[in-house]
């Protein structure tokens, strides 16, 4: 399912409207910054088998995130690099080599309808023959194109983000309100046993495969707000991690929330590769989030 996404739709969760927005915000921001867009510009989010694109005029584009082996007119192109495309060029994606979610940025603003302060698709997706106009940024958002001196530091930032997302099997979380309702065995299993993402994953949530987890006693909880990264324990003992299109409130046990800086790792994690959970705290999560955001300033 391919969609147009931006930073998401906030301010309406109290009436049940999911925030949406990029799944892997780090790769999306990276692709935007590389072509000179504001980091939170709208961008195409792609899943394999991904849509193909035909360009009606010359553009600067960039692909970041998952490597689906992008091919421009039958020639393979690099990721995380600005690419010049010409009129009638076609872009295809050949195979899911690394990661699960890819981003295609185009220099300029993608012209699409804004609903509640966001262009993020919620119930719709890209369809065959959809056409998008690319419009120049207005004065406020005009980006300084004098990038040459920055290239060296930008490469360093790309490496840092890529390494963070793709070279780690550790995903950190902060225990949630029902953490202490888990049995001791379940708590130790979460920390010590490997987990995999399952194929039953989409923009609403990722279901995990791992040891079966249990509550000390089966009880029902009053529904309460959840957020992206919330780890809910389903009645069958599996964890579902909520993603961008999540429901705004939920009634399953909230056993923890994956920290925002590590969420892209889970988004991109191939289902056949196991990962491990570890516990962290708010201070660490904030400092690492801010550290990573420095790559875009």
């Amino acid at each position, binding site marked *: 399912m391919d969609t147009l996404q931006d930073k998401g739709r*906030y*301010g*309406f*969760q*109290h*009436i*049940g*409207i*999911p*925030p949406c927005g990029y799944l892997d915000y780090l790769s999306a921001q990276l692709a935007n910054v590389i072509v000179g867009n504001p980091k939170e510009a709208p961008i195409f989010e792609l899943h394999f088998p991904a849509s193909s694109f035909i360009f009606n005029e010359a553009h600067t584009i960039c692909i970041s995130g998952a490597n689906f082996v992008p091919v421009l007119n039958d020639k393979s192109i690099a990721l995380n690099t600005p690419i010049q495309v010409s009129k009638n060029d076609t872009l295809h994606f050949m195979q899911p080599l690394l990661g699960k979610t890819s981003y295609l940025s185009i220099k300029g603003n993608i012209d699409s309808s804004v*609903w*509640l302060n966001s262009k993020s698709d919620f119930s719709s997706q890209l369809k065959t023959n959809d056409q998008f106009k690319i419009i120049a940024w207005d004065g406020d958002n005009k980006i300084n194109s004098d990038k040459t001196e920055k290239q060296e530091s930008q490469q360093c930032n790309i490496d840092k983000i890529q390494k963070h997302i793709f070279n780690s099997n550790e995903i950190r*979380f*902060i225990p*949630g*309100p029902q953490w202490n309702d888990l049995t001791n065995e379940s708590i130790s299993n979460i920390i010590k046993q490997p987990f995999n993402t399952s194929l039953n994953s989409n923009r609403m949530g990722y279901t995990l495969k791992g040891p079966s987890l249990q509550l000390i006693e089966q009880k029902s909880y*009053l*529904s*309460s*707000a959840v*957020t992206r*990264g*919330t780890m809910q324990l389903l009645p069958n003992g599996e964890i579902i991690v909520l993603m961008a299109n999540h*429901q*705004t*409130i*939920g009634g399953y046990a*909230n056993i*923890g*929330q*994956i*920290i*925002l*800086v590590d969420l892209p790792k889970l988004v991109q994690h191939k289902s056949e590769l196991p990962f491990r959970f570890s516990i962290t705290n*708010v201070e660490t*999560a*904030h400092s690492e*989030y*801010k550290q990573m*955001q420095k790559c875009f300033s």
Partner: protein
Amino acid sequence: MIHYFKIMTKIFSNFNWKAQALGDHAIQFYVPEKMDQAMICEIKCFHDFIFSLQLKEIKDIIPSYHTLTLIYDIALMHEPIAFANDLIEKFSSGRKTEVANKEVNKIIEVPVCYDEIFGIDLISMSTKLSLSITEIIKIHTENIYQVYCLGFMPGFAYMGDVNIKIQTARHAQPRKNVSAGSVGIAGAQTGIYPMHSPGGWQIIGRTPLKIFDKDPAILSKFKMGDAVKFYPITRAEFESLNQNEL
């Protein structure tokens, strides 16, 4: 026909708000007490208070049955728990001067066609509950319901409490498609599906009203704390009023 009624509230100072971090970008306020109707009013007041401050750190304020959750921007937040405790402090000291019983809510009246063609679970509920369909409708339309919170999908309001005589657990296996406007029961809760969606609630009728409108000036028909009363309409009235896609 417009009704007004008063929400009963306890003295506000009975509530003892606490704050906990919910991961790295949310704060959850909660009250140790049991949920009741005074609680809805309290949560609504706290929600409105925080909303009125228009704080730049806050991206969303989400009420539910017994909690109020803030989604914040990490880049702008320094000490989340200190920030949260400061809000509790400001709210608690400010409200001492308020008059507790002032809130008056209009009752939102919702027409429902309880025809079996829409109320597809009425027959099985009637058997299970040993009540006639007429009695189920009478009981469902007697109460004034409170909107506890919204969620599940845009505009879906969780309302309660349903009279124990017609409380029915949701289906073990959710239906793949429930029509927009469907009125359902799940235990002590009742609610309306704003759009076509999968769902497990026991469906007893359908409203012709549009419950969620994408127009930013309209959006959700209900908000937390609203009072709602259902009244029965005929099939012909339903057809003439219907605003939903069939």
